[in-house]
């Protein structure tokens, strides 16, 4: 059984007991425990089920690389699936549940897969479930989906109770990893005066060196770490963050740090996670190394664990995973586990060493009375939910002549692989180190930064060296190198001297025993979570999936939540062997961020709820909201679609507004329309290029409707342009067009005609603009008093500055409705007051505010086009009968050349017409008109489409505008629009002006 030891446990505080639950059972642990160590202390070795075969799974590691011990953590709106027990700090009240089983962890129906595993090799689904066709969708896939998937989905109706945030940090040197290498590199860099940031994923500094032993400058490692940490803490140029993982390294020195602020104390004030966006001139990766499992049959049985993890549990948390342990290794390091276990009073039955000879550590073990079996291998681990016994054989051979030994845990070590993720994310390359049988960073091919030079330096074990002394020397040099590359002068200092027992050479062992037969290989796991075995990789190679990427994808090797931290190198080696190639030739799969999974919440940061995206508001926004506004998003703006009164539907409201504006008086908040000031001696010339019409000839005091095309000829905006003085124009744009058109103008001014003397300023938000529309428009303005708004004083398509009532304003006599209409601009800070004044004064004239839908209907009744309705990015002015707005006098304007291309001049282009249904009904939005027959691809031939379609309350019938092939030549013809509702709408082609054809109403 696994149990708490009486002694040891450098990270736990035995005076502080913590209560938590696992699958509903209440358990005890100590402050400082991880969930994994606490579960082990409670003899809960089995912590989950595997992905494919639902095999029992125990914890195998003690850190971020853990593939098995994944739990659902927390409850309700703080539930989180797939959290690693090994990186979850224990706290009082923690609740956890194991995953991927039904009905429960101990007894799982899905485990039938393990008995069928022989029939479910890698890629079996590509070869099966092909017939009968409907079965994939209805039978096979639902079954596969249900049995896959690991953790439970968070409840669909729960909104995350926590908040998240981002922070932008800037540093000269960023050190990722707070083990002895990271600490030392940070110090070496900081001594140069460089600004240094040091981040560590766990809550503790020092990494695993304090567990592994040895001395640094003749002090115990713990002591050294303590001193170094306090030294760094006093340096003003060093920032240290624990519980902050380096998640990804991106181009130009951009690094993501994932800080888990409250995961160990949920419910505390403040954000749960903070995503650091760090810009570093240089990055030092001091991310350590990860121990590799050994591939032998039954290496997935709960109780089989990495040797280093086992000693972590003993030293850090005072927990032993077993009482009778066998150690299997191909290197000296695992002897440390044997020794530590033995010293802690655990029965270490044997060290099975695949090598013929070991080093001084083996001798030390022997002296403690541990039996060492050189040249041996594990043939098979037996046991279901827990290790029961181990069959031992010779490493050379196929696994015969076995000896069986009863035990309850196995510690395995296949050597160490540097954590090269951060080095690789942004293109750093690797080299194969034969002596240590691992890939390590190739210093000649680092990731390149903005200046074309390397910006990442690997340090310590993540760079290859594994012995304490070498690690410190390497890290010290890395810190100095990074500081130098960041432009600082490193101090001429020496690395501290680390001393550990000398280790003998390791020996690459990719399979135990070396020539294991197929039955053993089918039980030798590479990827514990995804159930990929040695035989699967060999099958992939045999079937031609030879590239490492093919093998990965065919077998799912390394695609689990640990992203192959334990399995990749072992899998590669098996593949290389199967292909009779070499490991470096086979290469690795691509390392992609993040290093371990990071929460979506953290990625989104603060952008949720009311600050998900900006909502732009006009000065009268609150009034609209209080007066029944049915809101419509237009870009980031909110505009009122209609003002709905109690008891009304939105549709009723629209009809009421439409009629009232034509009969009495309507007010529209037009503040969102863009307003650009264009000024300078060349402003007229410039606007002549921007607009299709002539703007330079516009008289001061007058307005002109203008069209804008892109260089590619398509309509992009329209609006009324007013000439303010000799060299100043004010250009109105569509809502949401202000920034776009401002940018468009600046682009041409800055990058093409930079010698033209023109300045542009966006003054959109300086003004609140109100359209005062309807037969009573003039009356209400006259009642408020001030400037003369009479027919002669302010004629149609002119503007004047003056006062309306108390308000300084600019009044434009323009109309988008065909009614008598003024648009009055007042300073935004007085917008609400002005609106109130109009509403008050307008009472006797039947004033009502109206929204965008009413605006649309009024303009459609008049046949005015709307950018975004009649245009969609494929429409040119000629399609809309706007030839009059295309200046023939001008040699050039944006779009003019484009209109000459053959397809744009094609007489078969669809042209704007009015459409009137035969029965008065409303043609559905987006309907197409059909012609005869089908095209070469069997599609119905289409001859036109509706662009705007409304019920006109004024006319009491449906009206529409549309683009129709040869439309203007076909007045009076009836064409058919099949609706998706099954009906066919017959409509007559008519003039698009439905109301007040002579325009008398706006000219009164």
């Amino acid at each position: 059984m696994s149990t708490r030891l009486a002694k040891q446990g450098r990270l736990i505080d035995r005076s502080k007991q913590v209560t938590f639950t696992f699958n509903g059972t209440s358990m005890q642990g100590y402050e400082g425990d991880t969930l994994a160590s606490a579960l082990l202390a409670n003899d809960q070795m089995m912590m989950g089920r595997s992905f494919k075969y639902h095999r029992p799974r125990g914890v195998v590691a003690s850190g971020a690389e853990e593939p098995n011990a994944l739990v659902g953590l927390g409850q309700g709106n703080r539930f989180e699936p797939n959290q690693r027990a090994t990186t979850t700090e224990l706290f009082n009240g923690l609740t956890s549940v194991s995953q991927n089983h039904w009905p429960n962890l101990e007894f799982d129906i899905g485990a039938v897969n393990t008995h069928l595993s022989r029939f479910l090799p890698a890629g079996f689904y590509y070869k099966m479930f092909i017939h009968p066709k409907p079965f994939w969708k209805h039978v096979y896939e639902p079954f596969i989906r249900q049995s896959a998937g690991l953790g439970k989905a968070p409840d669909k109706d729960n909104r995350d109770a926590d908040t998240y945030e981002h922070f932008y940090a800037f540093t000269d040197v960023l050190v990722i990893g707070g083990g002895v290498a990271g600490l030392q590199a940070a110090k070496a860099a900081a001594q140069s005066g460089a600004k240094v940031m040091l981040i560590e994923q766990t809550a503790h500094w020092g990494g695993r060196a304090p567990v592994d032993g040895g001395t640094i400058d003749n002090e115990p490692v713990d002591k050294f770490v303590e001193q170094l940490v306090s030294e760094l803490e006093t340096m003003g140029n060093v920032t240290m963050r624990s519980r902050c993982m380096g998640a990804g390294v991106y181009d130009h020195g951009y690094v993501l740090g994932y800080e888990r602020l409250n995961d160990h104390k949920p419910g505390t004030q403040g954000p749960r996670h903070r995503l650091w966006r760090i810009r570093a001139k240089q990055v030092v990766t001091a991310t350590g190394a990860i121990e590799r499992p050994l591939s032998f049959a039954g290496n997935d049985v709960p109780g089989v664990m990495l040797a280093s993890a086992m000693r972590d549990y003993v030293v850090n948390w005072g927990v032993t995973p077993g009482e009778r342990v066998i150690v299997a290794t191909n290197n000296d390091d695992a002897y440390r586990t044997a020794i530590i276990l033995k010293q802690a009073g655990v029965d270490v039955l044997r060290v099975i060493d695949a090598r013929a000879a070991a080093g001084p550590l083996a001798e030390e073990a022997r002296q403690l009375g541990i039996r060492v079996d050189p040249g041996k291998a594990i043939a098979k681990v037996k046991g279901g939910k827990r290790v029961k016994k181990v069959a031992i054989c010779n490493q050379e051979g196929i696994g015969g002549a076995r000896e069986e030994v009863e035990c309850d845990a196995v510690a395995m070590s296949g050597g160490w692989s540097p954590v090269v993720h951060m080095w690789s994310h942004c293109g750093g390359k690797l080299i194969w180190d034969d002596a240590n049988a691992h890939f390590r960073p190739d210093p000649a091919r680092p990731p390149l930064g903005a200046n074309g030079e390397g910006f990442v330096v690997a340090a310590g074990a993540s760079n290859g060296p594994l012995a304490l002394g070498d690690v410190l020397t390497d890290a010290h040099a890395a810190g100095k190198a990074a500081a130098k590359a960041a432009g600082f002068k490193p101090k001429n200092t020496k690395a501290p001297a680390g001393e550990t027992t000398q280790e003998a050479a390791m020996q690459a062992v990719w399979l135990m025993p070396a020539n294991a037969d197929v039955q053993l290989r089918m039980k030798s796991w590479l990827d514990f979570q995804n159930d990929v075995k040695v035989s699967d990789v060999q099958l992939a190679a045999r079937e031609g999936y030879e590239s490492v990427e093919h093998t990965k994808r065919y077998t799912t090797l390394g695609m689990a939540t640990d992203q192959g931290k334990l399995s990749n190198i072992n899998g590669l080696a098996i593949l290389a062997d199967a292909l009779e190639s070499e490991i470096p030739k086979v290469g690795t799969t691509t390392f992609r961020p993040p290093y371990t999974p990071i929460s979506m919440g953290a990625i989104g940061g603060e952008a949720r709820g009311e600050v998900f995206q900006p909502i732009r508001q006009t000065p009268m926004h609150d009034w609209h909201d209080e007066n029944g506004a049915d809101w419509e998003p237009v870009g980031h703006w909110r505009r009122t679609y209609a003002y709905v009164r109690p008891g009304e539907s939105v549709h009723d409201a629209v009809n009421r507004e439409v009629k009232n504006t034509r009969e009495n008086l309507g007010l529209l908040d037009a503040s969102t329309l863009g307003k650009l000031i264009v000024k300078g001696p060349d402003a007229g010339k410039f606007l002549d290029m921007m607009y299709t019409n002539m703007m330079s000839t516009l008289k001061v005091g007058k307005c002109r409707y203008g069209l804008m095309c892109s260089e590619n000829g398509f309509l992009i905006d329209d609006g009324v342009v007013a000439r303010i003085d000799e060299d100043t124009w004010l250009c109105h744009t569509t809502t949401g067009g202000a920034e776009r058109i401002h940018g468009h103008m600046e682009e041409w001014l800055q990058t093409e005609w930079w010698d033209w003397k023109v300045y542009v300023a966006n003054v959109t938000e300086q003004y609140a603009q109100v359209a005062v529309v309807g037969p009573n428009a003039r009356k209400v303005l006259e009642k408020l008093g001030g400037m003369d708004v009479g027919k002669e004083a302010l004629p149609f398509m002119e503007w004047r500055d003056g006062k309306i009532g108390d308000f300084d304003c600019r009044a434009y006599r323009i109309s988008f409705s065909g009614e008598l209409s003024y648009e009055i601009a007042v300073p935004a800070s007085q917008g609400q007051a002005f609106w109130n004044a109009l509403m008050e004064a307008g009472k006797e004239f039947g004033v009502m505010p109206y929204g965008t839908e009413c605006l649309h209907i009024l303009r459609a009744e008049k046949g005015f086009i709307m950018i975004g309705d009649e245009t969609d990015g494929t429409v040119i002015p000629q399609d809309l009968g706007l030839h009059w707005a295309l200046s023939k006098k001008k040699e050039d304007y944006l779009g003019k050349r484009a209109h000459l291309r053959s397809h744009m001049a094609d007489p078969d282009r669809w042209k704007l017409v009015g459409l009137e249904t035969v029965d008065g009904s409303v043609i559905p939005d987006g309907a197409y008109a059909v012609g005869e027959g089908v095209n070469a691809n069997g599609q119905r031939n289409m001859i036109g489409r509706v662009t705007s379609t409304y019920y006109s309350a004024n006319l009491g019938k449906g009206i529409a505008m549309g683009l129709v092939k040869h439309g203007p030549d076909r007045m009076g013809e009836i064409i058919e629009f099949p609706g998706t509702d099954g009906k066919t709408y017959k409509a007559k082609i008519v003039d698009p002006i439905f109301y007040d054809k002579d325009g008398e109403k706006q000219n009164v």
Partner: protein
Amino acid sequence: MLILNCPYCGVDAEETELAAGGEAHLKRFGPGSSDDEFHDYLFMRENPKGVHFERWRHSNGCGKWFHAARCTQTLEVFGTYSAQTTEPPKEIKDAITAKRPGWTWREYE
């Protein structure tokens, strides 16, 4: 996540302050140009695997357009410079030559 130095306001701006504007040093063809010229002007973009000249706007910043010389394969930036020029200045071309001897881009080398 690029960083480009805006030559107008001097800020080392990260990409979220910037808007990319496509190929630099295009010669505009208007009325009077041939179909081929107009087509190439609008659509035929340089798409090099290597040295590239492009336009950027410091949109969440000083609002100015500028030019950048950049490698599309390594994302190395050779330099940024004024938008008010029809070809890369000599110091930029020299900087590229120092890093990528023998480079060419359109008619420049």
